């Protein structure tokens, strides 16, 4: 893993190449502190990062959900019980009291980086 020093406290970790994430798809990345980030790529080539832990089942599976949209918002549906999460904010569309942590994603030179939350 390559750690890129950035201004302030923000650090970036390179996790994969852009072509490792097909459109409308997600992959899981493991950070050094053993936290897991689900990295998604939409049909519009936007990248988003969410905690990989599905808050309804506590299983590390959000990256394996189906990526799509709801009224224009990019979402992933948990593969366990199908609740949808807004990829931009981590908010659960089916239960407004729930949201998951988001991670900034940066693409540089064809490489996808996950930033600290």
């Amino acid at each position: 893993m390559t750690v890129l020093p950035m201004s302030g406290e923000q650090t970036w970790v390179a996790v994969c190449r852009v072509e490792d994430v097909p459109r409308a798809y997600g992959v899981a990345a493991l950070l050094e502190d053993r936290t897991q980030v689900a990295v998604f790529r939409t049909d519009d080539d936007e990248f988003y990062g969410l905690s990989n832990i599905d808050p309804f089942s506590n299983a590390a599976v959000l990256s394996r959900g189906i990526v799509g949209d709801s009224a224009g918002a990019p979402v992933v549906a948990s593969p366990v019980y199908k609740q949808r999460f807004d990829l931009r904010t981590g908010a659960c569309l089916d239960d407004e009291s729930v949201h998951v942590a988001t991670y900034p994603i940066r693409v540089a030179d064809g490489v996808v980086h996950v930033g600290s939350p």
Partner: protein
Amino acid sequence: MNRTLVVVGHGMVAHRLVEAVRSDDVDATWRIVVLAEEARPAYDRVGLTSYVDDWDADRLALPGSDYAGDGNVELRLGDPVVAIDRAARRVTTAAGHTQSYDALVLATGSRPFVPPVPGRDLPGCFVYRTIDDLDAIRDAVERARAGKGRPAAAVVGGGLLGLEAAKALRDMGLSPHVVEMAPRLMPLQVDEGGGGLLRRLITDLDVTVHTGTSTDAIEADRGRLCARLGNGTELDVDLLVFSAGVRPRDDLARDCGLDVGERGGVLVDATCRTSDEHILAVGECAAIEGRVYGLVAPGYSMAEVAAATLLGKQASFPGADTSTKLKLMGVDVASFGDAHATTEGALEVAFHDAVAGTYKKLVVSDDARTLLGGVLVGDAGEYNLLRPLVGNELPAEPAALIAPAGAGENAVGVEALPEAAQICSCNAVSKGAITTAIAEQGCDSVAAVKACTRAGTSCGSCVPMLGKLLAACGVEQSTALCEHFPQSRAELFEIVRATRIGTFSELIARHGTGRGCAVCKPAVASILATLGHGHILGGEQATLQDTNDHFLANLQRNGTYSVVPRVPGGEITPDKLIVLGEVAKEFGLYTKITGGQRIDLFGATVDQLPRIWRRLVDAGFESGHAYGKALRTVKSCVGSTWCRYGQQDSVGLAVELELRYRGLRSPHKLKSAVSGCQRECAEARSKDFGIIATEQGWNLYVCGNGGAVPRHADLLVSGVDTETLIRIIDRFLMFYVRTADRLQRTAAWLEELEGGLDHLREVVVDDKLGICGELEQAMAEHVSNYADEWKGVLEDPDKLARFTSFVNAPGTPDPTISFRTEREQPVPVLLGVPEVVSR
């Protein structure tokens, strides 16, 4: 307060009474004791003739009629009440038991009427009323068949019950005679014109009809019977069935001094009370306001009225509709209102089409404005609209209402019916009750209307009317798949089939909006898979799949997957069993035998899956599609190879079917089973398609279900050979796959299919739509294109690359997954109670 209600008899009406009391008696003020003569709980006597289809008495069982789990109802079977002591309020049974009551309900039903013919008690003479009667008739048929080949039989009675008996005999492979005193068949229901056509149609079905003649004597003749008819005809038969109407069983009431009607029946008032205030009577044994009804619908009304009376509520018998609609040996017969034009000045309008085999008559008032009644023979399609119009002003010229199709659009719609018109005559539900449920209780589907009003829950003939009423009330029943597609699944299937669009992105760009979601993506992926667009993980398709299809395994609660190799028919060699054990040991998997006769291996991580498949595929296993909306298993019993009772090779057929339909993607999972005899050890009738062996071949049952809403499968065809069976299953499955909604099992699909089982049979057996060739071709393509999905991944490095836990650490297992040991096997350590519990 704990009072005792004793119910004498347990037929359909008694059961309805107990249900009605239990559902309204919220504080359980009544303890109910049911004392019954027959050894089995209430069953569908109206459907008795269908018992011949498969000799499965369980299928006639009425839901809930054993009151299992209801501590307030005690059901004592096989011990009839023989005496009532009104002073002591106590009954005595044949076995000598006594039971006190605070209230007594007589629901003893009818006995078959046997005319006083000399010889009527000879061996070989039967009546037609109970399951036991049919078992006895069956035994006699079998005995006669064993003796000399094709037995002969006669039915005394050409009314409704007589023709039912004739149908039962015909279904047993006989060509019965029917003897009727009146000048025509079904004299109570149809007029001379209708009776003439009915006779012709019934005669075409290999039934010999003798009308206008009595049965004068029955004589024993060298082990057979000779029936001498009044017109001089002599019938040599092996058995004779009396089915000439019924008489109320009122003996108990007579013996204890209750008032009885002039023509029999326990006399009751409109609240169902007899001359003793502690005793009520309902159903066919009751003469309500002097009149006895031999139909179930008035009986059900009485049950509801009696239940209300017992619970201190005001209710009175609303009168009965004796209209009838039935299908006898495939011939529609309907009669409603004043069918015989007995009203003063009544006019008749009739159409008789001898070529088409239909007869339709309306009886109208002298000014031709009010419908009084009618008779329909050969085609009773208009019955549902006409019967509710009885007593109401006609919405069109009488002739227009029964004019043959093509002579102008039928003028009547549901809008024309008055609010009081009865839509569901089985459960006495009016149009007004249904429209109120739609408008005020928010019923927005046929299923909701059924649940709310009970309409359509008995014979189901009014179900199409419910849909029309919903539409008439402005309820749009949206069939849109999701926010991205305005089309239904069936419409999308046709679009994909016709346009040969091969990707989701092209389909949504041309026919939908947005980017898709977890509803439409898997649904379209399934359609593409059914139509043969390569491996389900090929190219863009991989991003459409639910996680189970994506990893070709079943996601479990800790994020691991389970693996189920196919074991066709549940038949497996010792060597293969050993391989399964070795694989489970090597990868530390939990093993369990499934309900589908195979073995599930739990606890595999995504990176382990290809390595597990490698071992399994090398040993000759393939994917069992436990993860897919696809054919799961075809269970089987051991069949004629081993079983002393087996009639066909059920395992061989199950293996053949499972290999034929494996991998077929469908709207929901498909389950099947094959039983080698009527004992049905494979539970085939709880399956989407189930096969039961008989001496003559295979019986095919369709649209059954286990699970939360069990449904016994319906008989589609019987006694067919293997080739015919497979052809019809091919058509059935493809027709379902094309037309069902997303996640709609076959049972729910059939419930909503307009025309129901009859329509299904017309399409897939009779090929009425002319699509069977196309359906068979589609299945042939599926069979020839089949390839194992696991092997497809193992052979493709691009697909294999997806089976990693982490994109940046492919060899590292998911650190959140761990196991502990329970009963000597690994089970997941759960990651604590989920921190968010919102439902």
